[in-house]
């Protein structure tokens, strides 16, 4: 095979696809006249022979045909794997030369070896990240970093679907993930998460919570990057020579930052880079982590510039909601009576002819909210009796029930047991019958409660 490449080739690395590296190398090589059509056909033929072998393995030798969509995915996997081995060449011209001189099978086998090595190191990184995960109530952070990635490791099969990531990797990182696939995607994603997690670990979870609560009081259920607001606040603190670890800015601080930036892009960038250096020394950040932060400064500059224009800098440099946040109160439903006693109380309740006698039985026997709840749900009481029992509860106790049985509708309601759904409807009717100010108080109190078993 003729090699028409010199070391001073004209392949443009920037124009090559990270996700489809092999195909983009060939495509660009052909466009630059570095690889002839005949050579392209020869590499294709080589690749198809390898695909035939892979299909035989996939079918365990039992079939020589396969669904077209399966074959297409296997081909993607093959090209991706060969691409991984070609990325090892610093110069893409050398990579193109390898396509023309090396058998496709060799490139593929090298790629599989590299992928398996990457898989090992990525698993180690994931294990370390899982052990050291920053404590945040944001649901998506933990579910993606722990459960999502575990899902990937379970599903990933480099031999047939090396290019797949299988999971949605919903949680967004500070740097956007693009033009990358397979294990390379997961490795880079975990690297990013590791940097961000390392940074977050420099702060108290409580301070971060206050800050993110200011971002949105429902931040625990929101899908957003939690690293960025913390980084911005820390940068703001560093710029004003405040205690960085406290993550505490006030409206006056934000006004000072506004004056400091002045609006010119270079000013903002310069100030932020200076603040990054301060963060580095105050928080003892590693060089790699500092580089990770610095390489995203351009994005932060644009955000700040937009906020300065729209007068919303306080949405970029958040002011912690320490005082607005209601104090969290733990509440337990208490222990339950033994089953035999419970059955006898239920039997007694079934004999009751009116709400008063129901109340008497309950008052005599029930000593905890847990038993009270079971009776309300399972004792087949009349609506009047349920209203009478709920009337015995203090507003604080009603708030506890409100917390445990939030208002549901549609499919959520259908998912409940019949008795639970019936009770929930009655409970909501009861709450709606209360004066509005009391209802509001109960709702506010419920928000601050945490039910413990």
């Amino acid at each position, binding site marked *: 095979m003729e090699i028409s490449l010199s070391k001073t080739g004209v392949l443009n690395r920037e124009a090559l696809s990270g996700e*489809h590296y092999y*195909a*983009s190398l*060939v*495509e660009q090589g052909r466009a630059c006249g570095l690889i002839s059509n005949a050579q*392209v056909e020869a590499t*294709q*033929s080589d*690749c*198809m022979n390898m*695909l*035939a072998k892979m*299909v*035989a393995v996939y*079918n365990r030798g*039992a*079939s*020589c*045909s*396969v*669904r*077209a*969509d399966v*074959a*297409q995915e296997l*081909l993607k996997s093959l*090209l991706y794997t060969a691409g991984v081995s070609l990325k090892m060449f610093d110069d893409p011209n050398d990579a193109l030369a390898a396509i023309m001189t090396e058998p496709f099978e060799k490139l593929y086998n090298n790629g599989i070896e590299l992928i398996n090595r990457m898989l090992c190191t990525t698993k180690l990184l994931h294990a370390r990240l899982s052990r050291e995960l920053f404590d945040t109530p944001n649901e998506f952070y933990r579910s993606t970093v722990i459960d999502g990635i575990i899902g990937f490791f379970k599903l990933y099969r480099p031999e047939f679907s090396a290019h797949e990531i299988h999971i949605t990797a919903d949680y967004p990182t500070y740097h956007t993930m693009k033009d990358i696939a397979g294990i390379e995607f997961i490795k880079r994603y975990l690297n990013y998460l590791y940097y961000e997690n390392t940074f977050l670990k420099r702060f108290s979870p409580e301070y971060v919570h206050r800050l993110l609560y200011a971002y949105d009081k429902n931040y625990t259920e929101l899908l957003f990057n939690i690293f960025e607001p913390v980084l911005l606040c820390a940068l703001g603190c560093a710029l004003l020579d405040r205690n960085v670890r406290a993550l505490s800015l006030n409206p006056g601080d934000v006004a000072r930052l506004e004056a400091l930036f002045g609006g010119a892009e270079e000013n903002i960038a310069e100030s932020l880079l200076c603040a990054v250096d301060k963060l580095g020394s105050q928080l003892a950040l590693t060089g790699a982590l500092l580089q990770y932060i610095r390489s995203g400064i351009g994005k932060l500059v644009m955000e700040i510039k937009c906020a300065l224009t729209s007068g919303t800098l306080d949405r970029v440099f958040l002011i912690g909601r320490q005082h607005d946040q209601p104090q969290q109160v733990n509440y337990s439903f208490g222990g339950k009576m033994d089953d035999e006693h419970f059955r006898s109380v239920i039997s007694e309740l079934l004999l009751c002819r009116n709400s008063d006698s129901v109340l008497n039985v309950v008052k005599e026997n029930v000593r905890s909210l847990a038993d009270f709840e079971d009776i309300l749900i399972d004792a087949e009481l009349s609506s009047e009796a349920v209203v009478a029992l709920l009337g015995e509860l203090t507003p604080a106790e009603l708030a506890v029930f409100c917390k445990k049985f939030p208002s549901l509708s549609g499919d959520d309601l259908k998912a409940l047991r019949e008795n639970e759904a019936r009770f929930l409807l009655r409970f909501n009717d009861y709450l709606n019958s209360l004066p509005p100010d009391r209802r509001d108080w109960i709702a506010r109190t419920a928000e601050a409660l945490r039910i413990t078993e």
Partner: protein
Amino acid sequence: MSFELIPFLGGQLAERQTITEIIESNDVSSRFGLTLTENQAAALIQTRAESLAENGRIEFGGGIIKRLIYEFCDSPFINAGNYEQTLHELIELFYSYKSQTRDMIGDDELIAYMKKSFDGACQGSVELLADRELDRLTRCLIGDRTFDPDEQPLEDMEEE
């Protein structure tokens, strides 16, 4: 970038090679008075290509035509007059049921089942093979019945 499957696999070189393989199988089938010309072989390859496309499949290597010839050439229900036509129909049936059974049965197993049914319960009827025996096989494989390749076709069992 032209790393597409269909145009590449249907190349002239591959077709020529398959024709040669089919013609070579005349050595075996001629013992039963059955032979194919190059044109007939090319027509079978065309049927194979159409069936693969129709069923959304890709095939590598020589494919199943040669294997169908070897399996069916000793059938008492195939003669020189219906040989080529029967092969066309068997090729179509093979890929159709390969897809319908969701690849749960290997090529050799499926061909062996087709042959056994064709010579047995179907008495050489491709229609019966398609409508009854292969349909039964599909239901066994994707339904709750367990398929046993050695199980007698339905009609055999009824006769007993």
